[in-house]
């Protein structure tokens, strides 16, 4: 025995399934809305994070030095800093050690560092040739290379004295030159391990550069955190980078938000008009049902169920395409995939259903206000 409820359900289902072209039109509308909704909201979540990563190409935004003048940090300090800073925001952490050295009786500054880390914290370095990858290799600043007339492949002899005034001297192979238009051009770079071996004085670090993405705890608070957790260390914000990043990133984020709001509003209105057109076409049917003695409530309930189904289905399909949309943008712009925000899917479905239902109930209400006789006679 068929119950009234399942008959109503059957009516709604047939209305959707047997009017395929209309269903397609309505579903397309809802799906577009849901796609834009989820796609843009996901991007809104994602773009500020991604952009913040892009801004890291300006290099370090926090540096650490010993808090007393002339003091030096240790490898232990470096590790404590690494442990204290949140791993998901740390783009790179690079130690630097500066030593005055000589080549051909001329003074230079040699810098010991880890090149893998430098690539992360200073992506703006332009290296002609290659970064050193093995012990005994060295990278010259562009100005040093110019002054010494040396180039990649040639060897250079470095000599100096350590703090105990013991002489040291070592030959290196040049792998390339670095140019940045800044002080880096005047330095000689070698791996920190090589430098410790050469000077026979391991363990010193003069300065540590950190590149941290924004979002979450402010950088100033992170600096305080390090100051508390690591003894005798002085964290400093590179204000030039942090302050500019704050202003520019805020504006770009706002741009994305505003564009999203505008696009979303307009799209939702579009979905509404489409739904309204599709439902308006059925004024006759509404008139007929009323002539047969249907209560307004019952007719409205049927359309509500129909809208709900359309909204949910369109919302689900749209969620899928929306995630693809967001992924596509993220991949082609930032070259990175993004974490699909799955918790946004129910929200998208809910909003789609809501918009669809509201959009279809309004014309139903309008149609019901008209005398069924008028509707049935045809306009």
């Amino acid at each position, binding site marked *: 025995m068929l119950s009234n409820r399942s008959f109503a359900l059957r009516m709604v289902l047939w209305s959707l399934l047997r009017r395929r072209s209309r269903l397609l039109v309505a579903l397309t*509308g809802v799906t577009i809305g849901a796609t834009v909704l989820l796609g843009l909201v996901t991007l809104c979540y994602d773009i500020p994070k991604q952009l913040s990563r892009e801004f890291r190409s300006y290099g370090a935004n926090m540096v650490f030095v010993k808090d007393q003048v002339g003091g030096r940090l240790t490898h232990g300090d470096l590790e404590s800093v690494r442990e204290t800073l949140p791993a998901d925001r740390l783009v790179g952490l690079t130690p630097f050690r500066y030593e005055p050295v000589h080549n051909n009786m001329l*003074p230079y500054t040699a810098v010991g560092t880890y090149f893998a880390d430098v690539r992360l914290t200073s992506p703006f370095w332009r290296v002609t040739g290659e970064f050193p990858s093995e012990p005994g290799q060295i990278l010259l600043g562009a100005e040093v290379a110019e002054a010494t007339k040396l180039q990649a492949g040639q060897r250079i002899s470095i000599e100096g004295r350590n703090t105990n005034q013991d002489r040291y001297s070592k030959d290196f192979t040049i792998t390339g030159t670095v140019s940045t238009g800044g*002080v880096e051009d005047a330095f000689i770079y070698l791996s920190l391990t090589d430098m410790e071996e050469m000077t026979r004085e391991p363990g010193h670090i003069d300065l540590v550069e950190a590149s941290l993405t924004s979002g979450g705890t402010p950088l100033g608070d992170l600096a305080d955190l390090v100051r508390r957790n690591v003894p005798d260390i002085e964290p400093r914000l590179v204000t*030039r980078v942090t302050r500019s990043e704050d202003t520019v990133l805020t504006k*770009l984020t706002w741009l994305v938000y505003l564009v999203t709001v505008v696009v979303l509003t307009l799209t939702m*209105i579009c979905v509404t008009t489409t739904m309204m057109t599709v439902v308006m076409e059925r004024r006759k049917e509404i008139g007929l049902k009323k002539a047969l003695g249907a209560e307004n409530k019952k007719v409205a309930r049927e359309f509500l169920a129909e809208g709900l189904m359309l909204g949910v289905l369109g919302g689900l399909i749209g969620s899928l395409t929306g995630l693809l949309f967001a992924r596509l943008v993220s991949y082609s712009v930032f070259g990175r995939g993004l974490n699909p925000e799955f918790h946004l899917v129910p929200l998208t479905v809910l909003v789609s259903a809501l918009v669809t239902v509201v959009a279809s109930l309004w014309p139903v209400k309008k149609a019901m206000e008209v005398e069924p006789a008028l509707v049935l006679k045809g306009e």
Partner: protein
Amino acid sequence: MFLKMLLGALIRQKKKHLMIAFTVGLGVSLATAMLGVMFDVGDKVNQELKSYGANLNVIPKGSSMMGDLYRLSEGEGEGGELSELESDFIREDELYKIKMIFWAYNIVDYAPFLTVQVGLNGQKVPLSGTWFNKHLSLPTGDEVDTGMTAMKSWWVLEGRPGDDADPTGVLVGRELARAQGLKVGSNLEVQGPDGKAESLKVRAIFESGGEDDRGIFAPLALAQGLAQRPGLVQRVEVSALTTPENDLARRAAQNPGSLTRLEWDTWYCTAYISSIAYQIEEILPGVRVKPILRVAQSEGAILSKTQLMIILLTILTLLCSALAISNLVTANIMERSVEIGLLKALGATGLSISLLVLCEILIAGFGGGLVGYLVGLGLAQFIGLSVFGSTVAVKSVVIPIAVLMVLTVTFLGSLPALKTLLGLNPTEVLHGR
């Protein structure tokens, strides 16, 4: 007759056509706003990125760069001796030429620097002379204000900003001020390298977050006097709006001579950082212009990413609004199945019905599109004003794009529905089967 039917349909089916006009209007306003923002976002972001400071360093050919990011131990290796050769300096009275290169309007700001080590209470302190906000009258008749104040936007000042007309007013770095107990308004006396003393007054204490915090910034003439290098500067920092680098620009930066004539023209007439550098070198003999890659490279990356992002967003939104419009048109035509069936039953050909329906929709769409365009302009300005605080210059190319889009979309959107309906048997449609 056609016109009468068209007019009749337009006037009597006001509601339906209003709906089409409305949706098309929405689509167009979206397109206009997004395209407007898209074409202008590059300039806007570029302007914003200027807050990172200079992206070009102009130095005399002979010298090497002595600027410092993180100087480690004070005094060490820093003799503070200025070169005796005039070729190691740039002439101050030639600097106006920087504003006369091909890309002059892309030079946002520039400021010269001359740093001299001065004695302050027995300590050696770097004193840099510069232009704070210098007014220049160019031979071209243009008036230009340029200097350091605008370029170092991240500096936090306590007190009054630097003034080129105040010969003894200086800005003191926060760390130096703390070490020496200086306050805004304090007087201090410094000795030049050869013992010449000057009595100065602190206009402001600044915080730059860098090594500058341990130094003094003064009007250029004061530094020149202390250093006894009248009319000379050591280097000039230039902040220019640039186009992100591409392959051509990278090749040109390596060696401009390697380009073909055509490539060279393209390169020279594009605001690449390397071509601007090249043009400054052309106009100021005896200098070397080095891009500050930390700024220049990052600018390029961020600029191109932002532009790509907005372009993609625009394309996708246009696609969506196109789909939505054609969807609505389909719905509209379907709704009119009875009317179309009737026309067919009366003997109208498929072509004449299509023409009638298309004309109606296009006229409604055009009306909506016009309003939508104006709304879109408003939206673009709203976005521009609220994000960047300046209006968006909507390029005129947006109009044909928007019009073309609406025409194509409404036309293409109508076709499938029309085709289905025209394929139907008129009696079937009329009998509502």
